[in-house]
C-alpha cells in the first residue's frame, strides 16, 4: 500500500554492477518506502536477478558505481549476514540443497542469529519448535519437512514454500522475492502468494522479481518497473503488467536503441 510520508526503506541511485567483468546493471534508480510492494519485470538477461543478488550481497556481484541506502545506512558497508540480520531477505530463485543439515536446525540457527543481533534471548529448541509449527501454517507446509535436510529432495514448489517459511520466521523489513513464482503450478502459486500477503504490513516492503504477470493477480503491486538492458525503462501501476503481458517488452524500447 502507498502511504504518504512513510519511511524510505531502500534507495537505489545510479547503480552499476558487474559479474565476472561483464557490466550488467547500467544505472538503476529505485526507491521503496515502507508498506509498498514493487514488482520488477523484464526479459531474461535484463538484470533483474543481478539486482536482487547484488542487494543481498552475493560475492560474485560487484558494485561499480552509484549507491544503495537501506534504512539510512550504506548497504554495501554490510556483509551479507549483516544485511540479513538488519532485515534484508532474499527468497532465492533456486534455493540450495544442504544435505546433512535438518531444516528445523537451519531455521533455528537463522532465527536465533537475528534474535541475537536484536539483543533478544535465543529461543531454545523447545520454544522454537512451537513457533515454527505455528508459522508452517502460513505456507501450509507439512511438519515432516522440518526433519528433512534443507531442501534436499524437495519439489520446486516445496522449495519455494520453504523460502516463504523462512521469510515468515525472519520477518524481514525488505523481502526480495526472486522469481518465487517461476515453475509453480496454480495451487502452489496461490499458497505462496497467500503466504506473502499475510506477511506484508505498513512497516515492511516487498520487491517482487518476476517474468509473469500471473503472480501480480495474487500479490498486487503498488508499482511495476520494467527493466531492460540493465536499466529501469519505465514505471507504472499494476495495469502496466497487464499491458506487458499483452504487448511484450519491445514497444518499450527507449529512443535510439534498436
Amino acid at each position, binding site marked *: 500500500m502507498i502511504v504518504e510520508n512513510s519511511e524510505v526503506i531502500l534507495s537505489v541511485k545510479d547503480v552499476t554492477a558487474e559479474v565476472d567483468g561483464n557490466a550488467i546493471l547500467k544505472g538503476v534508480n529505485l526507491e521503496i518506502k515502507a508498506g509498498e510492494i514493487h514488482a520488477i519485470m523484464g526479459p531474461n538477461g535484463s538484470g533483474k536477478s543481478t539486482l536482487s543478488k547484488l542487494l543481498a550481497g552475493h560475492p560474485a556481484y560487484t558494485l561499480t558505481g552509484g549507491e544503495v541506502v537501506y534504512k539510512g545506512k550504506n548497504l554495501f558497508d554490510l556483509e551479507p*549476514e549483516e544485511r540479513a540480520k538488519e532485515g534484508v531477505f532474499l527468497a532465492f530463485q533456486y534455493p540450495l540443497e544442504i544435505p546433512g543439515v535438518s531444516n528445523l536446525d537451519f531455521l533455528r*540457527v537463522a532465527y536465533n542469529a537475528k534474535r541475537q543481533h536484536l539483543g533478544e534471548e535465543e529461543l531454545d529448541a523447545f520454544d522454537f519448535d512451537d513457533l515454527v509449527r505455528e508459522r508452517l501454517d502460513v505456507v501450509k507446509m507439512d511438519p515432516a519437512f522440518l526433519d528433512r535436510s534443507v531442501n534436499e529432495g524437495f519439489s520446486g514448489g516445496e522449495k519455494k514454500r520453504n523460502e516463504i517459511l523462512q521469510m515468515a520466521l525472519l520477518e524481514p523489513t525488505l523481502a526480495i522475492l526472486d522469481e518465487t513464482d517461476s515453475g509453480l503450478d496454480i495451487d502452489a502459486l496461490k499458497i505462496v502468494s497467500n503466504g506473502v500477503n499475510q506477511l506484508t504490513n505498513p512497516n515492511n516492503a516487498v520487491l517482487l522479481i518476476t517474468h509473469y504477470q500471473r503472480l501480480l493477480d495474487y500479490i498486487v503491486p503498488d508499482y511495476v518497473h520494467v527493466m531492460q538492458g540493465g536499466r529501469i525503462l519505465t514505471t507504472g501501476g499494476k495495469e502496466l503488467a497487464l499491458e506487458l503481458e499483452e504487448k511484450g517488452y519491445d514497444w518499450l524500447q527507449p529512443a535510439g536503441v534498436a
Partner: protein
Amino acid sequence: MTISTIEVTPSDLKKGRGNVERQAYLKTLISQRAEFGAEVPAWVKEVRDRNLTLIQDQALPSNRTEEWRFTDPSSLYKIPFQPAAATVTAEQIQAHSWPDVAIRLVFVNGVFAPGLSHQTEVSGLQITTLQNLDDSFQAYLGKTHGSEEVFTALNGCNFKDAAVLKVDRNQVIETPIHLLFVSAAQGETPTVAYPRVLVVAETGSTVTLVEDFVSIGAQTFTNAVAEIFLAANAQVNHIRLQREEATAFHIGKTAVSQKRDSRYRSIALSLGGQLSRHNPEIVTEEQTETILDGLTLATDSQVADTHSALTFSQAHCQAQQLHKCIVDDHARAVFNGRIFVPKAAQQTNAAQLSRNLLLSPKARVDTKPQLEIVADDVKCAHGATVSQLEDDEVFYLQSRGLDHDNACDLLVKAFAAEILEKISIPSIRKGLLEDVLSRLR
C-alpha cells in the same frame, strides 16, 4: 640351460640402496622387542616367533611399493623410534574418556594399565590380557588372513600385551567396551607402541567395541593390529577412533573374519597423525552383512590413508561402504577400497562410495574405489565424488544471517555428520563432532 643377464639401471641401484636401509630400519625395530614375562603362556611366544620368521626377509615399503604409491612412508624411517615405558596420569586419561562408556581398558604403549582402567563384571563377557591367557585363544591369536603384510607382521613380532575379549554364545552385551590405547613419549624420546586386540564373538552374540587411539608427546609411532572373529550369526559393532596428535605416526590393521550370517558394522575415524594409515581387511562367508563407514580429516601437512579390502568367499552377502574425506590446507588423503567378488560369491549385493570435500586449493585426495567381480549374478555399485564448498551454498547461509565462518562450519559439519550420526553412543558422537570442528579451525 639358459643363462639370463640382468641389466642394472641407476634407478634399480637407488631402489636397492633404499631397500637395504629400510631392511636395516626394520631389523632395528625387531631387535628392540621386549621379552614377555613368565605369566605369558609359551604358545603366545610361539605366535611372536612365527611372525619373526615371516618378517625375516622383508623390508618396509617405500612409495615405489604399489600399495604405498600415494603415501610415502619414508619420513617414518628417519626417526629412531624405540619402545619405552611412560607414566600417564588419571587426569590425562580422563581427558580422553567417554562418560557413557562404563568399561574402559587403558593400554599405555601397548601394555595394559590396570590402575587407569575401569571394569565391571558383565555376564557372558570375558575381558583379559596376555597374562595366563587361556589356551582356547590359540585358535585365534595371529590366525587372521594377511598377517604376512610387513607392518602386521612387525606388530605380530613385537607386541608386548593385548586386549583380549570373548563374548559367549548368544550373549548380547549392551555395555560398549572402550579400549583406549595411549601412545606416550616421555620427554624427547621417539616412542613406538604395538597395540594388539583380539576379539572373539561366539555364535549368536552381539558386542560393541570402541577401539580408540590417542597420543601424548611429540614423537610417537603406533603400529596396531586388531583381529576380530565373528562366529555364525554374531554381530560386532566396531567404532575405531584414531585421534592422535598431529605429529604422530599411525599404521593400523583391522583384520576381520566373518563366519556365515554374521554382521560386522564399523565406523572408522582418522583424525590425527602426520602420517596415518588404516588397513581394514575383511573376509566373509555366506550371507554376511558388512558395513564400513569411514571419515578422514586431514589438515596442515597431514597424510591420511585408508586401504580397505573386502573379500567375499561365498554367496548372498551384503556390503555397504561409505568413506568420506575432508582435506584442508596442503594435506592429503588417500582412499583405496578393494572389494573382491569371486566366482563363488553369487548374489552379492555391494555398494561402495567415496566422497571427498576439499577445503583448500592445495588439498589433495587420491581415491580409488575398486570392484573386482568374477561372479556373474551380483549387484555391485561403486563411485567417487570430489567437491569443494560452493560459494552459492555459503552465500545462501549468509543470506539467512550466519557469518562466513559459521556458514562454512555448518556445511563441513553436515558433511561429517553423515558418518558421525551413525555412532550410537551419544558422548562419542557429540565429542567427535566438536573434535572434527576444532581440528579444522
